């Protein structure tokens, strides 16, 4: 399974993602520039956190127009794995690959801390190694993380089990339904505000994010074997 980490101008968690996959998971991973136009040979794509294009206009809005974006949309539509964290999540909503939008935190503050989450769907390719309902801790670091969608869209998300992570105890940004991460209807695209890539080594204090990458790698392998 070969994984692409897309680098936009202003990405700043691309190295964290790369290292989580390469150094910790020993996965086959490569950086892909926003200038490239195709994703041939890759089985999963990761959109990192940061401030792509300076967050001009709206967070993630300009990244949608980069060269690589049509290939990512096609990739997602083919059912391949797409993951976006933080700014990556914002890009996925702006590109229409995930419903809703992320707006300014209710507090108007940039929040940077570790927060408790509940795994509310462990049947996605990204979460099979978590227990259903399990509480985990992951870091968050964002100013525009308040998830918003129209009532009908929220009902649809809940009905389909597309809400994968929910904030526990404290909602740090005003997200509706305490939403921290969602998938598309098919389940092959996941976007989340928390940073699992910053929590992959016990030595650094937290490895609750590791199983997200391990789940993806295991499910990618399963998919490869099934295709043989």
């Amino acid at each position, binding site marked *: 399974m070969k994984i692409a980490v897309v680098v936009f101008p202003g990405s700043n968690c691309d190295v964290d993602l790369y290292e989580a996959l390469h150094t910790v998971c020993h996965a086959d991973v490569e950086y892909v520039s926003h200038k490239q136009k195709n994703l041939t040979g890759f089985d999963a794509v990761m959109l990192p956190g940061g401030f792509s294009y300076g967050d001009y*206009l*709206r967070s993630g*809005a300009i990244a949608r127009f980069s060269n690589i974006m049509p290939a990512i949309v096609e990739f997602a539509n083919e059912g391949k794995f797409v993951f976006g964290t933080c700014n990556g999540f914002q890009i996925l909503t702006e590109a229409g690959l995930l419903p*809703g*939008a992320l*707006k300014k935190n209710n507090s108007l503050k940039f929040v940077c801390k570790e927060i408790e989450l509940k795994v509310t769907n462990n049947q996605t390719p990204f979460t099979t190694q978590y227990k259903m309902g399990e509480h985990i801790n992951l870091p968050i670091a964002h100013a525009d993380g308040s998830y*918003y969608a129209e009532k009908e869209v929220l009902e649809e998300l809940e009905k389909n089990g597309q809400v994968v992570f929910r904030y526990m105890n404290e909602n740090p940004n*005003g997200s509706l339904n305490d939403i921290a991460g969602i998938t598309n209807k098919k389940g092959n695209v996941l976007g989340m505000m928390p940073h699992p890539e910053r929590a992959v080594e016990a030595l650094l204090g937290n490895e609750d994010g590791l199983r997200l990458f391990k789940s993806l790698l295991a499910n990618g392998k399963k998919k490869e074997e099934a295709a043989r």
Partner: protein
Amino acid sequence: MINVRIFVTYKESVFDPQGETITEAIHSLGHDEVKQVHVGKFFDVQVDSSNKTVEKTIAEISEQLLVNFNLETYRYEIMEEA
């Protein structure tokens, strides 16, 4: 050339934390008669086109880029022909 000002604001259903905070600040100035503030943004756009096609241009750039319809809505004013 036609000068157009496009206003983008949150939809009524969307909580506007900046507007809320500014309203509170205005109240601390003693202006309790101010009941609500909504924050938005505007874009001044110069369009090289006739009056006939400018509306189409504005609708397209607003809908495809300037506005996120999940959260926002827009209106515009044609200012003057430059």
